[in-house]
Every structure is written in C-alpha cells, then in structure tokens.
C-alpha cells in the first residue's frame, strides 16, 4: 500500500514538473510548480524528514510561490495572446537535457551505493535544533545576515527612483 502511494507521488511530481516547463500559460506553470513542490514534500515525508517537509510547505509554497505569482501578475498581461513561451533553442536544450539525464541515470545505476540501515527516528526537530545551535551555529548566523541583506536589497531595488 505504501509502495503504491509512493509511486503515485513520484508520478505526480514528475508529471507536474513536466507541466512547469511546458505549459504555455505562466499561471498554469506556477500552479504546476505548486503541485511539484507538494510532491517533493511527500517524498521528504517518505524519507523521514518531517521538519524539512514542514519548512518546504511554509517557505516554498507559502512564500516563494506566492512571490512568483505576484511577479507574474505584476508583469504579465494575462489577456495578451502569447504565441509561444519558448525560444528557438528548444532542440539544443532538449538534446542536452536528454544527454545529461542519460549520463545521470547511467551513473546512478552503475555506482554501488553504500547504504546503511537505520530505524525511523521519533521526529527530527530536536536533533536539527541541537545541530543548528552547536555544529552549525556560524552558518546559521550568516544565513540570518544573508536574509537581512536580501530583504534590504529587494526593497531598495524595487523602490521607485525619483
């Protein structure tokens, strides 16, 4: 049963990711991106990453996707007729993407991966909190400075210059 649900979510993720890069309407692409992010969240849950699944929902779906939708609505004329959203490099891009995919699949199935069996933890929030406050304290603080800089930079860039 779990296996069937897993494959349903995999199919869901891949098909909606395909729609993200292929749909002609940008709003549809953004909504497909929502479904893709949701599918990746489900895969996180299958990988026992409960905290990351929550963060993915809150930050990606609640933050970045809304930001993208705002950007589309501010800059895109929804009523205008767009002939194509794709440029002339479709053949080259498809060929190189297919080449990269073949190389990656070859690498994935040829490598004898070292895997360890481990038992499912009772939630990861506690351990992640301890790690963030001990081993990864400096990156954590640097990330806060980065977010502040991005906030100020975005506000300054989008302000009207008189």
């Amino acid at each position, binding site marked *: 049963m779990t296996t069937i649900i897993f494959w349903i979510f995999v199919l869901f993720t891949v098909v909606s990711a395909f729609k993200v890069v292929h749909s002609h309407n940008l709003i549809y692409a953004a909504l497909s991106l929502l479904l893709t992010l949701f599918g990746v969240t489900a895969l996180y849950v299958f990988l026992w990453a409960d905290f990351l699944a929550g963060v993915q929902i809150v930050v990606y779906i609640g933050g970045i996707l809304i930001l*993208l939708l705002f950007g589309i609505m501010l800059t895109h004329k929804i009523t205008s007729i767009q002939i194509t959203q794709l440029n002339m490099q479709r053949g080259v891009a498809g060929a190189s993407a297919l080449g990269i995919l073949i190389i990656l699949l070859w690498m994935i199935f040829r490598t004898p*991966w070292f895997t360890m069996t481990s038992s499912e933890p009772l939630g990861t929030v506690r351990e992640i909190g301890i790690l963030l406050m001990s081993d990864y304290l400096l990156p954590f603080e640097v990330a806060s400075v980065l977010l502040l800089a991005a906030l100020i930079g975005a506000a300054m860039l989008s302000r009207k210059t008189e």
Partner: protein
Amino acid sequence: MDVLQNYLVVAAILFVLGIYGVMTRRNGIAVLMGIELILNAANLNFVAFARFGGMNLSGHIFALFVIIMAAAEAAVALAIIINLYNHFRTINVDEAGKLRR
C-alpha cells in the same frame, strides 16, 4: 520506496527538467521556476543520502540552508525582474539584453 536509486532518479528527472526550463523559457519568471526545480532536485538528493547514510542529519541542515538561500534568491530576482519590466516593458530575457536603455 526503500531504495536509494528511486529517489536519485526522481531528483535527476527534476534537475533535467529544470535545466530544460532555464534554457528554453523566454520569460524571466519562468526561468526562475526552472531554478527552483533544480534546487528542489538538489535538496531531494541531500535528504535521500541523509536517510540512507544512517539518518545523518547534516544532510537535512544542508537542505535547510538551500531553502533559505532559495528564498533570498527569489526575493532579489523578482525585484530585478520588476525593475526590468519598468525599464523595458517586457521581461523576455532575450529581448532585455542591454544593461542601459
């Protein structure tokens, strides 16, 4: 679902689709969506290796920092795209090739 390769294949497909989107889309925001797909593929790899490498949570921390960076990047990139729209009245990246008006 308990095999590492399944997750790696999904991540590889997401990565390739993201690359394809970045290379073919004309709209700046659609290019950004491709970048989000690529970052998600990398995150999926981090979490998968964390799960199958003995539940080592450093992979989760890395994925967390990638998400933080994606948020900052999306905010700044959208500010730049809106500026581009105010200057050129278009956000097609192949038409907006000049730095000045």
